[in-house]
């Protein structure tokens, strides 16, 4: 039964700020699916890229403490942001193998290191825990006729053996989820190519080049829109899309959806519940054209 699925929920900093619509659509979707999400009390930043680039012990400690806090809530830990997901999994992986680091972290956080809790990305919860069949059964407004380019980015499935979400170099989990929602997932070449991530702050030129290649590939494959599972990928592809079009004198007009927004539409949620108005590239014309709004 749907209501036996309970999770602790770690939104991460982005979902409480620039990616507010990802948080909103996640809560609304899961509520509609009857999956309970309880936010981890007093959680704090996972450290993302800055922490592990500067101080490994800091990065491991931040995540280890968050994992420990998560133990207070019943259920596995649900994570929406690919970067938080990657950091938490990395921490578990590193501390499982390295006793010395584990001892250092335990001293730093002044608490035992708990590594047996399961950290799951939303995709895993939808595709495996809930199951694609039950997901499809919950769909009341299938996304028929919508061609979606599923964009994984770097951190959802890599490096091998850390996230263990799906095949590292040829995953299909996003496609399976969006197809269960009735959409058509296109085959395109840049599903796993980097968007430039944090370079958006320090070397935006790099980001423009990389995201241009991604959008170009999606367009060449005939996609109507792009679907992501990471706030930073979203930012680079959505917020910067106009700039990309200007610099490379091209036109994409590809709305960038969070996976929970698209699945939420299929499950019958309204635009306000999914935060569609927060998207820079306006999705309304496309959705109206496909009869999905």
């Amino acid at each position, binding site marked *: 039964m749907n209501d036996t699925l309970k999770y602790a929920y770690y939104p991460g900093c982005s979902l409480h700020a620039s990616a507010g619509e990802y948080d909103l659509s996640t809560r609304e979707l899961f509520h509609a699916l009857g999956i309970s999400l309880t936010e981890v009390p007093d959680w704090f930043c996972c450290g993302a890229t800055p922490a592990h680039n500067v101080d490994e012990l800091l990065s491991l400690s931040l995540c280890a403490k968050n994992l420990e806090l998560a133990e207070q809530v019943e259920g596995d830990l649900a994570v929406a942001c690919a970067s938080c997901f990657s950091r938490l999994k990395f921490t578990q992986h590193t501390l499982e193998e390295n006793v010395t680091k584990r001892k250092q972290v335990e001293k730093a956080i002044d608490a035992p290191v708990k590594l047996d809790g399961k950290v799951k990305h939303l995709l895993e919860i939808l595709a495996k825990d809930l199951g694609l069949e039950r997901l499809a059964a919950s769909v009341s407004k299938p996304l028929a006729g919508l061609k979606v380019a599923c964009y994984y980015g770097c951190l959802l499935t890599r490096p*091998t053996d850390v996230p263990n979400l799906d095949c590292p170099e040829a995953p299909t989990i996003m496609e399976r989820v969006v197809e269960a929602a009735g959409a058509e997932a296109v085959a395109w*070449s840049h599903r796993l190519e980097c968007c430039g991530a944090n370079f958006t702050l320090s070397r935006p030129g790099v980001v423009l080049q990389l995201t241009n290649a991604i959008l170009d590939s999606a367009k*060449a494959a005939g996609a109507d829109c792009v679907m992501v599972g990471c706030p930073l990928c979203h930012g680079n592809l959505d917020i910067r899309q106009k700039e990309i079009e200007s610099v490379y004198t091209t036109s994409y007009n590809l709305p960038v959806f969070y996976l929970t927004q698209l699945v939420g539409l299929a499950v019958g949620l309204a635009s306000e519940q999914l935060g569609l108005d927060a998207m820079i590239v306006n999705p309304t014309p496309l959705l109206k054209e496909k009869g999905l709004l």
Partner: protein
Amino acid sequence: MSRIGVFICHCGENISRTVDVERVAQEVGRLPGVAFSSDYKYMCSDPGQTLLKKTIQDQKLSHVVVAACSPRMHEKTFRKAVEAAGLNPFLCEMANIREHCSWVHENIEEATVKATEIVGMMVERVKKNRVLPTITVPVTKRSLVIGGGIAGIQAALDIADAGHEVVLVEREPSIGGHMAQLSETFPTLDCSQCIMTPKMVDVANHPKIKLYTYSEIELVEGFIGNFQVTIKKKARSVDEDRCTGCGVCMTKCPQKKIPNKFDQNIGMRTAIYIPFPQAVPNTPVIDRENCTKFKTGKCGVCQKVCGPGAVDFEQEDRLIVEPVGAIVVATGFDLYTIDEKPKGSPIKGYGEFGHGKIPDVIDGMTFERLASASGPTGGKIVRPSDGKEPKQIVFIQCIGSRAREKGISYCSKVCCMYTAKHTMLYHHKVHDGQAYVFFMDARTPGKSYDEFWRRAIEEEEAVYIRGMVSRLYQKGDKIVVMGSDIAVGVQVEIEADMVVLATAIQPQKGADLLAQKLGISYDKYNFYSEAHAKLRPVECATAGIYLAGACQGPKDIPETVSQASAAAAKVMTLFSKDKLEREPIVARVREAGCVGCFACRKVCAYGAVEEKEIRDRQGNLIKVVAYVNPGVCAGCGTCQATCPSKCVELDGYTDEQVIAMIEAL
């Protein structure tokens, strides 16, 4: 009663400088059972040995202890001398008072006391020594060779030319293996089939070689010199004795589009087929899975047109038992593929290269078939997808190999050379084509190898880019290859018409199962393990079984042929005697006490423990006990220390002997 003779050697000054040898001889002379005790300057010398032999006879000695250097030095010498004097050699022991005493202790008193104790210990031990007769095992002078590639062919020819019968078993319908698939071979670029087919024909015509093709090994029983091998001869559906090899059946077969494994599935064949025109034997096989007659009951055209009436749809698999004395394993290799591997497999595929789904991304062997004059395209390099000639080919080295994260850590040895060869073949056939090679290192150590590689760059215009490829994907009808050039420090993108991957060399599928049938060891990759990496590269730890070729590890043709001849030489050494003589330091089971728990079998690394039924006079089974095959046992004694009932004893190192030594100290 024992009459032990003790001989203390001075070893010139080596022992006598720090050990008072006369005193030792005196002290030991007083021990009960010692009939003679004396010292001498050089026991190993001719006069020393003569003294030994004479004393044995004069004094009617029952046992001998020679106190001198290490037994690892001269045990054989003294045992031979003792045997010449009429005493069983295993009643002679050595006491090491040089390497373990005189050479390592300066204090004469300490050294002398220690030497006396050491000799005394060996005196007590030798009292418990028993006569151990040499073990002889009869040898059947016929050899089995498993695998009909170049390794198996070479080994078979060498052994057969030496006058011994060879049974050669090959799984495929024809011998030739992978070498027959190659177009030209490095470093000379001579045609592979041209140099190989004469050898194949020699095998077919050799009076001493019994060739079984389309056959597999079903069961192996026995031990060195005395194997019984059951061979399953699969049903060809063609009577080999009647078939003349005319080939009419193949021209009339309606099923013409079955992918031919020999042509790496880019060439097609019929249901009744020979894998390639120069196949040996030239007798077709019916692929029953794809044959209309076997699938639906209709057709049967081949039988109708066969003049000699050789087609036999009723033919069945047969089991044949061949007795042999030695086995050469030459099962060769298979190529790694980049497709998606099952979950949990230690070896991973290359999702980043499309998991094998992009049609113009091929492997090296497929390129060989394209380049081969007798291949499916008549030697034209064309794209499998649309048959067009590729103007830009990207070759990528080390696919699977040297990739810990993919599960294979080793280097496949031959790919640097064959990739250079491919660039040259491509250049010869497509003059305006450009070859790019992404590589990490160029491993070209053999004779004329480096020069060959340099030729590819300097004369044949191949562009070598040192760097790896992170991804390749289909874009329109091109393949975009994303790599890096680390010499310059940039990322490189090439739009190629075709990509050729130098995939890793792996053992054949089923190599582990065959190894288990044979009782030989293999490593985690399923390569067969040699007995000693440096000094015994063609033997297995299991006596009587030898290795040749890529089944033992990746190697090129010259090395394979060398190893095959080496294995054949080992077989010939085995066959040079009618009986195999072995040192009698082997384990024996005391059957009265054995309960048949077979803990000994679990710890025996040589598979020397067999089952033996103990029956009463009426023939009823009482119990099944362990039996140690004296032809196979290597004499380590692990079984004895493991046996919970203390029912197995290692001759030469019995508990009695050991306890006697300990009690003497």
